[in-house]
């Protein structure tokens, strides 16, 4: 996996869209169709409030509370609502559990479906042609690019989000973390582990991802 820090080819022409979007927004405001403060509020919600820390809370609770985990796997939308999460692009949730023999990976080959209430907005790579094209035909190759080499005997289950069901991977709890609090556990759980492109590590070395 190449690091794209300095390769913003997905975003190479900001000036033209900047002007186009400003013009469109002004026009819609003038016509009374859009309230710019509502746009601010929508952006603020996804930049600052709704993100992978929500999904991490759900999984940490599932690790700590077997009853909650059972409810999460049986009816994810209801279990997730218990923690106060749900709504836009998470109306219909499914939780899939990683086990010693099964590893789950989520993709949307047709567009960019993603569980907003639990993970926020998707990263560029999730929406990109390389991920969408290859996750179903070469999941192990994709995982390798994320630095994850799975044993040959592990079954890789890919979930293609072709409908309005949104998938959350319940990763495995690392050994030696049994005594941690729910909050400590949540801090180990990264976005990538909830999509299925990484495993949860005992210490949160992966940083913001």
């Amino acid at each position, binding site marked *: 996996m190449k*690091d*794209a*820090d300095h*390769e*913003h080819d*997905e*975003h190479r022409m900001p000036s033209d*869209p900047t002007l*186009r*979007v*400003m*013009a*469109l*927004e002004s*026009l*819609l405001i003038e*016509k*009374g*169709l*859009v*309230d710019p403060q*509502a*746009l601010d*509020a*929508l952006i603020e*919600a*996804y*930049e600052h409030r*709704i993100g992978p820390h929500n999904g991490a809370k759900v999984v940490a609770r599932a690790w700590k509370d077997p009853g909650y985990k059972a409810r999460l796997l049986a009816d994810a939308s209801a279990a997730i609502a218990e923690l106060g999460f*749900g*709504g*836009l*692009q998470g*109306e*219909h949730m499914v939780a899939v559990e990683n086990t010693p023999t099964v590893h789950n990976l989520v*993709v949307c*080959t*047709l*567009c960019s479906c993603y569980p907003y209430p639990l993970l926020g907005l998707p990263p*560029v*790579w999730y929406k*990109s*042609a*390389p991920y*969408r*094209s*290859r996750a179903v*035909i070469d*999941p192990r190759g994709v995982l390798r*690019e994320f630095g994850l080499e799975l044993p040959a005997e592990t079954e*890789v*289950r*890919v*979930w*293609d989000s*072709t*409908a309005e*069901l949104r998938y959350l991977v319940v990763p495995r709890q690392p050994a030696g973390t049994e005594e941690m609090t729910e909050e400590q556990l949540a801090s180990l759980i990264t976005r990538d582990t909830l999509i299925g492109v990484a495993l949860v590590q005992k210490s949160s070395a992966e940083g*913001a*991802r």
Partner: protein
Amino acid sequence: MNGVHDMGGMHGMGPVRAERNEPVFHHRWEARVFALVRAMGKFGRWNIDASRHQRELIPAAEQLRMSYYERWLEALSQLLVRHAFLSPEELATGKSESGTAKLTPALSADKVPAFIASGAPVSRKAGRAPRFGPGQRVRARNLNPTGHTRLPRYVRGKTGIVDRVHGVFVFPDTNAHFLGESPQHLYSVRFEAQELWGEATTSQDSVNVDLWEDYLDAI
């Protein structure tokens, strides 16, 4: 439609490039487009399926060249004209024409939390029992509609096993074209990797795909 958006199984797209500490939006205009799409969607003149289809209708070469939010901007612009929020002249000039009807109220900031929290559920009441049950073998139909569909090419004609019965959901193939919701049962169907990609692939891997009843035949 057999468009370039239907990417599952394609080669030649290159390696996955993940960016460290990626911001939610890379440019302010991306954030504004995201919010505009949500705010205008609130009026209910179109639906999520129509919105996706509008992006699929962007000419293939353009779709591949554009960034994600450029596609959103292009499709939103088309939807605004198609559904008479804007005239083609207004979109081209950016100037409001007198006499254009204003549609209010706009989504206000105080309504945003409720708007996000409620979402737009697309499950519907079951009118009849599901045709298929868990464990049943089914074949994805070889359908090639020129309109919107959520039946990816890579499963067409392939055999799988019903893994989960999700309930009744709005059918995108009609809803995208404003031909009604045609709610029907939706299933998660598991396809073995070998069935999809041939003998040479790793044997025990699989792909689960959510498919509506009209996409499936019993075997």
